[in-house]
């Protein structure tokens, strides 16, 4: 006779919380969030000014990204991010000025101005190169985690991030299946902002929570408030520790929201209501965390104002410095196809 599947050994559990964060760390988290938002806005602004043809923003993801970046151990961990992760990359050590090299497609961009803005890479910081092909990087992250395990580098993990839309791709499934099977040292962070361009989560999957999918891969699924940097830090740090302990991967779903249009090429008013956006805006993680810091006496209003000013100064300086840099040259089109010279050009 038919029966239901047996309960899974890795059924979802709530993670231990309340990692102690020092005041310094809390301030660093906030600065990271402010920086992300300021850089974001600058991108859209430059686009409106006609200075750059394209930018993508991540307003609403600041808490997830700042906190994940703080959990990331520089010099050890590897990051396999996606295109909405400029804040995460910066929080992991990617220099602000280089974000602007990418925005302006300058020769100094690590990718030589070849990719769209936001497609960052910096091997020296452990930040992987990824393409625009959604979910294409998922298996790379898993392969990198395999390499860490293979070489017995037991103090390192891979952090791999993606949107909820990306979970529909077959490669997403293949990556999680392999990672679960080999209990690899990897933390999957889904930045669930409820939209994939104009496609809401309800048209993307039949389930309410991405995290429920984890059970099918023999790993733990965790849902976390993606507007709460401390909760995200808790979740990622816990998952990281478990991965280091040989406990295998975790799928963290950080529920957040995409406040802006998909990119500067998009107009979200065509497919979602202002009311919906506003309803999430009241939980905006940046003012919310600011409020928390003030309330808990971590920062004074003066501290906050000074920090905002400093962030703006940094962003202004980077904007100007990057804009002054030259484009790559036409001849740069032909380099780095393979090592050495590729084929003779016509």
């Amino acid at each position: 006779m038919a029966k239901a599947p047996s309960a899974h050994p890795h059924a979802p559990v709530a993670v231990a919380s309340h990692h102690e964060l020092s005041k310094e760390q809390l301030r660093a988290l906030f600065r990271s969030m402010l920086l992300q938002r300021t850089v974001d806005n600058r991108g859209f602004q430059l686009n409106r000014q006609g200075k750059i043809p394209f930018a993508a923003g991540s307003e609403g993801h600041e808490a997830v990204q700042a906190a994940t970046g703080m959990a990331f151990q520089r010099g050890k961990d590897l990051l396999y991010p996606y295109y909405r992760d400029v804040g995460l990359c910066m929080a992991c050590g990617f220099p602000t000025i280089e974000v602007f090299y990418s925005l302006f497609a300058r020769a100094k961009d690590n990718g030589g101005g070849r990719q769209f803005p936001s497609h960052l890479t910096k091997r020296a910081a452990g930040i992987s190169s990824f393409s625009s092909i959604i979910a294409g990087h998922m298996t790379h992250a898993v392969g990198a985690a395999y390499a860490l395990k293979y070489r017995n580098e037991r103090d390192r993990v891979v952090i791999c991030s993606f949107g909820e839309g990306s979970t529909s791709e077959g490669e997403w499934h293949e990556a999680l299946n392999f990672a679960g099977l080999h209990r690899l040292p990897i933390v999957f962070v889904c930045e669930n902002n409820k939209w994939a361009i104009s496609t809401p989560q309800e048209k993307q999957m039949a389930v309410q929570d991405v995290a429920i999918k984890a059970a099918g891969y023999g790993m733990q699924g965790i849902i976390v408030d993606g507007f709460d940097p401390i909760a995200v830090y808790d979740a990622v740090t816990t998952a990281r520790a478990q991965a280091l302990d040989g406990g295998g991967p975790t799928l963290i779903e950080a529920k957040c929201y995409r406040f802006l249009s998909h990119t500067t090429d998009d107009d979200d008013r065509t497919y979602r209501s202002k009311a919906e956006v506003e309803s999430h805006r009241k939980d905006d993680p940046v003012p919310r965390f600011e409020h928390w810091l003030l309330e808990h006496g971590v920062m004074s209003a003066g501290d906050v104002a000074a920090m905002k000013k400093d962030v703006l100064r940094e962003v202004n300086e980077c904007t100007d410095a990057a804009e002054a840099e030259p484009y790559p040259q036409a001849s740069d089109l032909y380099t780095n196809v393979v090592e050495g010279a590729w084929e003779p050009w016509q």
Partner: protein
Amino acid sequence: MAVTSATTVMNNVEAVRATLYEALKNDPRTLIMGEDVGPRGNVFLITKGFLDEFGPQRVLDTPLAEASIVGIAIGMAMEGLRPIAEIQFADFIYPAFNQIVGEAAKTRYRSNGDYTCPLVIRTPYGGGVRGSLSHSISIEALFYHVPGLKIVAPSTPADMKGLLNAAIDDPDPVLYLEHKKTYRLIKGEVPAGHYVVPIGKAAIRREGHQLTVVSYGLNAHQALEAANQLEADDGTKVEVIDLRSIRPMDKQTILESVRKTRKLLIIHEDNKFGGVGAEISALVAEEALFDLDAPIGRLCGPDVPAMGYALPLEEEFMISTERMKQRMREMVQF
């Protein structure tokens, strides 16, 4: 093309849009599926408003999964529907390769005709729009080697409509390529009503006897412009063929033209090595070699993975009308 009295001036986006609209209107078996084709009306607004008129069953926002967009469309086609699937950008068609090459193109063959797969896959391709490495590529040469798959790349609004109708009417899978730089750039008269431009027929855009130029997509317009300038400059007469269909390929039109002009230049934006120009050249080298008065020329995108985002990289990759003119002149003078 059927002669109809009423025509309207449209750009390429409008022509595709109008054709899709008529298809949905006229045949209940047709439906449109792809990422963001619903309320957003596709990223180029091609299907804007369709959802309201035809409903979510026929204007289907899919999950973000290209293999399933094509695979599900195949299943629909096998069971009698006429799906028109969209891949949002040609650069994202790779995950659907198995379904297109391994499944759609072989359905009729492997079942010896028991099942067929009347499916259209539309996708915008090509550069010159600051699309960077990942929203600029040409994909025709990745597919044109595949028996059982038809590929069209119309360049004018009238052909956009006529070939899209032909693709939708076709009982076999057709890959329909839209050069995104031509979307709003190219305008022209489009006949009213249903008509088809037959798949497999090239168009001679301009007659000439000193050189045959074969091109398609955006480059076909530039080649025509370059040839016009050459004639204005010094009376040089270049024949320009717009291939329109990449497979089946119109060998006859190409061979007849080359036998007349005795010189052939192929122009395409896609990388040169193994590109569509390779087969055109090989065809002529096989069937009309002794009619040639000059080596067969190919003016193509360079053999790098893609154009870069930075302006100088894109400009270096794309073929300018000036370069075409220069190369045409060289070949005429050869």
